[in-house]
């Protein structure tokens, strides 16, 4: 990482999830980009309020599953039929029915890996540090607080945004700056 870029956000806490969702909706309608909400559990209508496209996790999972299936089938066929064909109990060298359980298991395993690592990758996790953590009050985001963040050019005045948020019912508004990821 070369030069440190400092980014700033305006953070606003709302009393209820409903207030947060509607505030987000309205701020987005006002044209704010790159907003994010923070809540201890998923918000109803939160994704829509943020205007997020459908998640790509299912496709990653499908890809993982298919990879697993192909891997399993090739692996078993290669090992038991092609590379070292042995007469095992008079069973056919290519005993496809016997390949099924492992094919299934590996499909599931790879799909699960796809989901897990897909989730982490799409969320850019693990990310132990985030500028939002600079605010002590923000700690409530994981327990009982409902927060909205709006990116804001570093060093400029955020009063306008703050006011708009207060108007939408924010109980607490602050600005944080921190090193971008």
């Amino acid at each position: 990482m070369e030069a440190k870029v400092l980014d700033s956000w305006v953070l606003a806490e709302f009393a209820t999830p409903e207030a947060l969702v509607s505030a987000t909706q309205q701020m987005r309608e006002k044209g704010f980009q790159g907003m994010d909400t923070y809540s201890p559990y998923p918000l109803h209508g939160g994704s829509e309020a943020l205007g997020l496209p459908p998640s790509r996790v299912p496709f990653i999972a499908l890809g993982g599953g298919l990879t697993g299936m192909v891997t399993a089938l090739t692996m078993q066929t290669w090992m038991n039929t092609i590379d070292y064909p042995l007469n095992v109990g008079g069973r056919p060298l290519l005993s496809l029915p016997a390949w099924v359980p492992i094919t299934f298991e590996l499909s599931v395993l790879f799909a699960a890996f796809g989901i897990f690592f897909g989730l982490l990758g799409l969320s850019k996790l693990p990310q132990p540090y985030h500028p939002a953590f600079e605010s002590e009050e923000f700690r409530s985001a994981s327990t009982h607080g409902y927060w909205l963040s709006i990116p804001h050019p570093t060093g400029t005045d955020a009063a306008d945004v703050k006011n708009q948020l207060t108007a939408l019912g924010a109980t607490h508004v602050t600005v944080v700056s921190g090193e971008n990821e």
Partner: protein
Amino acid sequence: MSRLSAAMLLAVPAIAIGGLLAYVRSPLVTNQARPVEQPIEFDHRHHAGDEQIDCRYCHWTVEKSPSAGIPSTTVCMSCHAQVWNKSPYLTEVRKAFFADQPIPWVRVHNLPDFVYFNHSIHVGKGVGCATCHGRVDQMGAIEQSAPLTMSWCLDCHRNPGPNLRPPEFITSMTWAPPADKAEASALAETLLKEYDVHSRTSCSTCHR
């Protein structure tokens, strides 16, 4: 940062596993390329190389027994009673002979006890000494030249042709298959037929 750490997370086990797989194939594990010191400094370079003594002169059971045979002290003395019979190099040999005490040679090619390798059939079916033992005539102290792993055995047992040589060259240290590919495979075909050699990969071929 996070990407790097994530990559590390995945790379470390991959490298570890890959490294282990490479390690067990390395001479560190197979014991290749380690000249072994013997109780008596016997030099194959001299006997097999310079003097061109046929392998079978000393390893005389190679054609009729599973074991190629470690020559008895008498075999040593059959020549060295006449030549170099005062050489200080051979003091130990003479001592062993006259005291009727065996010489404890160190085993170089050590297969596990559950592997039954039979020299007579390999030699009888056209596998040359040098194929497995390497250029013994160039080794001061004998070292293991082939990995002697099971997959190495299997390579030849699955496709014996390329490792066969005509009967008259079994003990030759210098024989090499024809450089021309077509010629080599034609020779392999002929030898397979002549020796009546088949691929044998059943477990009991070697494990009993």
